[in-house]
């Protein structure tokens, strides 16, 4: 459903993502981990077609993001970091705008909006302005927007950031419900969330993939579990770089 092929991107001579390749099939939920500045957001933005890669390609349900961007994006839902929304809109206006952008008919839009309202649990704020909503609600409205066209692939950059424990649990449950018929990529800083949500983990460092396995296997590498394994992997890479 989602395939990244040798994806690379540099900014002002600095390599942000270096020949990143992996693929994801239906039913997989991938935890995309890395330190700040490791290249997670850049990879996700390239995968969503927000920025163009310098080289490589992303295939979404058989469509190339480089040569057939719009067809690929029709099959993809993206929640950017910080869940940016239009402050002057209500969630209902926002979802209607997304329906129009995705070419969803008015009739189908109504049922799609009802579906995502129930999924993201935002029914009680639909007529309030986005600027008046809490961070948690904004994130859930953003998530509802990413789901409005029922995409095959979901790319969620920090979907639970800013949510309280109850909201986090609700989002995790939603992701688990959606997982069976979608491929989902999630970036998160909260490592304890990973085993609860993800069936696979990829760790990147300096734009390169350094580990790819299930959360259970990854956790077995070190005694302290996933967090220790993550710190161990990243610090080993850092040590190699410092020696070099």
């Amino acid at each position, binding site marked *: 459903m989602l395939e990244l092929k040798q994806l690379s991107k540099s*900014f*002002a001579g600095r390599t942000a993502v270096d020949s990143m390749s992996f693929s994801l099939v239906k039913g997989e939920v991938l935890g995309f981990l890395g330190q700040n500045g490791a290249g997670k957001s850049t990879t996700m*933005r390239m995968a*969503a*077609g*927000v*920025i*163009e890669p310098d080289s490589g390609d992303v295939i979404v349900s058989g469509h190339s993001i480089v040569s057939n*961007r*719009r*067809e690929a*994006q*029709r099959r*993809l839902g*993206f929640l*950017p*970091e*910080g869940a*940016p*929304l*239009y*402050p*002057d*809109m209500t969630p209902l*206006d926002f979802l209607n*705008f*997304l329906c*129009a*952008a*995705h*070419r969803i008919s008015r009739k189908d839009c109504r049922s799609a909006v009802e579906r995502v309202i129930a999924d993201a649990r935002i029914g009680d704020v639909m007529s309030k*302005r986005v600027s008046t909503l809490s961070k948690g609600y904004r994130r859930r409205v*953003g998530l509802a*927007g990413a789901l409005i066209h029922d995409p095959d692939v979901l790319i969620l950059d920090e979907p639970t950031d800013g949510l309280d424990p109850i909201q986090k649990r609700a989002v995790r449950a939603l992701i688990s419900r959606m997982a069976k018929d979608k491929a989902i990529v999630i970036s998160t800083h909260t490592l304890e969330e990973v085993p609860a949500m993800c069936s696979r983990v990829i760790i990147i460092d300096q734009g390169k993939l350094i580990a790819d396995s299930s959360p259970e296997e990854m956790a077995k590498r070190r005694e302290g579990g996933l967090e220790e394994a993550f710190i161990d992997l990243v610090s080993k890479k850092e040590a190699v770089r410092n020696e070099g």
Partner: protein
Amino acid sequence: MKAELRDIVTSLRASYLRELRAYFATPLAYVFVAIFLMLVGVFTWEASRFFDTGLADLQPFFYWHPWLYMIFLPALSMRLWADEIAYSTSELLFSLPVSLFGLATGKLLAAWSVAALSLLLTFPMWITVNYLGAPDNGAIAITYLTSLLMAGAYLSIGAAMSSLFSSQVLAYIAGILVAFVFTAAGWPMLVGGISGLLGAAAGDLVAQFSFLTYFETAQRGVLELRALLFFGGVTITWLLLNTIWVSNKRAFAG
């Protein structure tokens, strides 16, 4: 080709409705229309001394349009892209299966609609001159139409400038500066100065790039094809530049 056209129309419609709603969801459009109407009135009745001319026509009213547009229309267009960048909603927009040309056109048309509404609300001027005398209403209609086209050209400059900045203020200043060049190039004092320095041909050449030159003919009630082509050409050129600059953000964004 058919699919591309469909994507352009879809994106145009979605962004037009969004932007139009955004103008009226905040006080921006209301304040813009109110201040524009007030200043148009002040300039027409006071600065141009309408009642002293003894003529029942709208020349004193239309005379100020290029200058007022130069100051006001960048204020209407400054938020079109600058806000998308400032609020990071451009990230969201770029992840949608939309045509950037369609989006840019929709945004421009939304701003143009607010400008058209402002122009429409000047109808009491037209009623006044018809009450006072028997003006050439055909000529007035032609000047209104050309003024609306000229507004589109000013707005397309402002929208393109807005795509270069994340600050509305900077977008506004840049919009005014470029609009000033396209306005002042036909200002008689400047044309005279250039003619004196470089010859009449140079002065005429510079004046050919000014909104004033083409709008002046329209003020006499003459509908010129070259004026229509000029305003249409300027609008399309800046709209294309706008699309290219926004597209570059996808290619080179950090």
